[in-house]
C-alpha cells in the first residue's frame, strides 16, 4: 500500500483549495458590488428618477430624475452596438471565408486585439481631436460612432471565435451544392453561429453602455432629453460620475441609484440575450 499523503494527493488538495478560492473571489466580488449598489442606491431610487429629467437644482438635491441619461445611454449604446455589428459582420465573413489562415488575417486579428486593449479614454481623446478638426460639436452621433469603434474589436473577435469552431464539413457541404462563399457565409455560417453572434452583441453592448470616458468629450452631457443626432446626449455612467462628485450626501445617494439602474439594464439585456440565443439555437447543428 502507498501512503495516502503521497505528493500527488497533496497537489490535488492544493488545486482544489485554489479553485474554490478563485470561485469565491469571483462570485464574492460580484455579490459585494451588487450589494453595495442595491443597499446604497435603493433608498434613493424613486419613480421620479426614472420618469423625469433633472429640474433646476437637481444636482443640489432638489427634484427631478435622470430619464435623460437613461434614454441617452440606451441610444448611445444601442446605436454604437448596431454600428459595430454592421461593420463587424463583413470583417468576420471576410476572415472566415476569404482569408482564414493567411498572414493578412493574422494581422487583422492582432490589430483588433490591440484595439481591444486600448483604454476607452484614448478613443475619446482621439475622436475629440477629429471633432475639433472638422468643426463638429459634441453630439449623440459622435458618441454613437465612438462607442461603435470601441465595441468593434470585441464584436469581431467574439463572432470570429464562434465562426472558427464551426465544422469545416458544414462549409464543404454547402460548397459541394454549388453555393458561393458569400451564400455559404450568409445562409449557413450566420445561421449556425447566430447564438454566438447574440452573445457577442451582448458583450459589446455591455462595454458600450458602461463606458464613461469615451463619450465624455464626444457626446457631452445635457439635462435635456436626446432629441437630435447632432445635439449632445447624457449617459448613465456620466450621471453617476457627476452626482458622485457633488458634496451633497443625498445627491451621492442618487449616484448609487443611477448605478443601480445601469446595472439593472445590463442584467436585463444579459438575461434577454440568453433567452434569445437559446431560442435561436433550435436549428444549430452541434
Amino acid at each position, binding site marked *: 500500500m502507498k501512503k495516502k499523503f503521497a505528493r500527488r494527493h497533496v497537489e490535488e488538495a492544493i488545486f482544489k483549495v485554489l479553485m474554490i478560492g478563485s470561485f469565491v473571489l469571483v462570485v464574492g466580488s460580484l455579490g459585494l458590488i451588487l450589494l453595495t449598489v442595491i443597499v446604497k442606491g435603493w433608498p434613493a431610487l424613486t419613480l421620479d428618477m426614472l420618469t423625469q429629467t433633472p429640474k433646476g437644482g437637481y444636482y443640489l438635491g432638489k427634484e427631478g430624475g435622470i430619464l435623460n441619461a437613461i434614454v441617452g445611454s440606451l441610444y448611445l449604446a444601442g446605436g454604437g452596438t448596431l454600428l459595430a455589428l454592421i461593420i463587424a459582420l463583413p470583417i468576420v465573413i471576410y476572415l472566415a471565408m476569404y482569408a*482564414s*489562415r*493567411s498572414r493578412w488575417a493574422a494581422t487583422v486579428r492582432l490589430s483588433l486585439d490591440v484595439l481591444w486593449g486600448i483604454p476607452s479614454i484614448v478613443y475619446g481623446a482621439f475622436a475629440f481631436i477629429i471633432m475639433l478638426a472638422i468643426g463638429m460639436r459634441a453630439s449623440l452621433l459622435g458618441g454613437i460612432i465612438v462607442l461603435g469603434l470601441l465595441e468593434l474589436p470585441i464584436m469581431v473577435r467574439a463572432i470570429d471565435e464562434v465562426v472558427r469552431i464551426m*465544422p*469545416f*464539413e*458544414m*462549409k*464543404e*457541404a*454547402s*460548397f*459541394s*451544392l*454549388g*453555393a*458561393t462563399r458569400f*451564400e455559404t457565409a450568409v*445562409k*449557413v455560417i450566420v*445561421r*449556425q453561429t447566430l447564438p454566438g453572434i447574440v452573445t457577442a452583441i451582448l458583450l459589446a453592448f455591455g462595454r458600450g453602455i458602461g463606458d464613461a470616458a469615451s463619450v465624455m468629450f464626444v457626446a457631452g452631457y445635457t439635462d435635456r432629453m436626446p432629441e437630435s443626432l447632432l445635439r449632445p446626449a447624457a449617459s448613465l455612467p456620466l450621471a453617476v460620475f457627476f452626482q458622485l462628485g457633488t458634496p451633497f450626501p443625498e445627491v451621492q445617494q442618487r449616484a448609487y441609484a443611477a448605478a443601480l439602474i445601469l446595472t439593472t439594464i445590463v442584467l436585463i439585456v444579459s438575461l434577454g440575450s440568453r433567452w434569445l440565443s437559446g431560442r435561436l439555437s*433550435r*436549428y*444549430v*447543428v*452541434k
Partner: protein
Amino acid sequence: MQAHIQVRDLNVEYSGHAALKNVSVEIPKQQLTVIIGPSGCGKTTLLKSMNRLLELSDETRVSGQVLIDGADIYDPAIDVTEVRKKAGLLAQRPYPLPMSIYDNVAYGMRIHGLKKGRDLDRAVQHYLELAGLWNEVKDRLKSPATRLSIGQQQRLCLARGLAVEPEILLGDEATSALDPISAQHIEERLHELKQQYTIVLVTHILRQAKRLADYVIFMYLGEVVEHGPAHEVFSNPREERTRAYLEGAIG
C-alpha cells in the same frame, strides 16, 4: 464504355507532400465506380478532385486535368459552382445545414433558382422520396434536421445533393458512420440511382465494394495500381499488389 469523367496526369500536393502521383483513370457513365485501397492512399483526394473541393484547404496544389463530359473542370474560365452543382458529394458523416428538413433540401434549389413556390414543395417531396426518407419526415418537414437519426440525416444529405440535379454523385465512405441497417438503406438507394447517375464511391469495406461496384479503381500510396470492370478486377487481378490487397495481405 463511355467515359463520363477522365482524370489525366493528376498530381496533388498538400504542403509539399504528394497525395496523388500521375493519376490517370476514366470513370464510366451511369455506372457505379468504387475506389478501394488502404487508408491514406489518396482515395478521398481523387474523389474530391472531381468537384474541386480540394482547393478549399489552403496549401493544396493541383496539376493535371479532370475532364467531365470532355471539359476540363480546372480550366480557369470554368465556373466552379457549376462544377460542384454537377457533381454532388455525400460525405463520410452527414452534416445537415443549420435549418429545417425542408430547407435543407430546398437550399440548393433556392440558390440556383431552380424551383419556386408550389414547384419547390413538390420538388422537395420528390427528392426526399428518391432518397427514401419522405415517409419518415413528411409530418415534420419544419423541424430541425438535427432531430433526425444519423442514418436519416445521411439520406437527407443524399436528397439535398440530388435536389441540385447533378449528373455525378461522389460518396466518401458514405456509410462508414452509419449502423448496418442505415448503411443498407444508403446502399439500396445508390444501387437504384446508378441507372441515372454516374456514381463514384470511396470505400474501405471490401464486401461493400463487391456488392455495389460495376467498375473498380485500386489505389496504393497515391497511385492508381489497377482499374477495370469489377468482375475482372475482383476475380482476376492483373497486379500483384491488387491481389495482395484483395486477399488481405496489405492495407
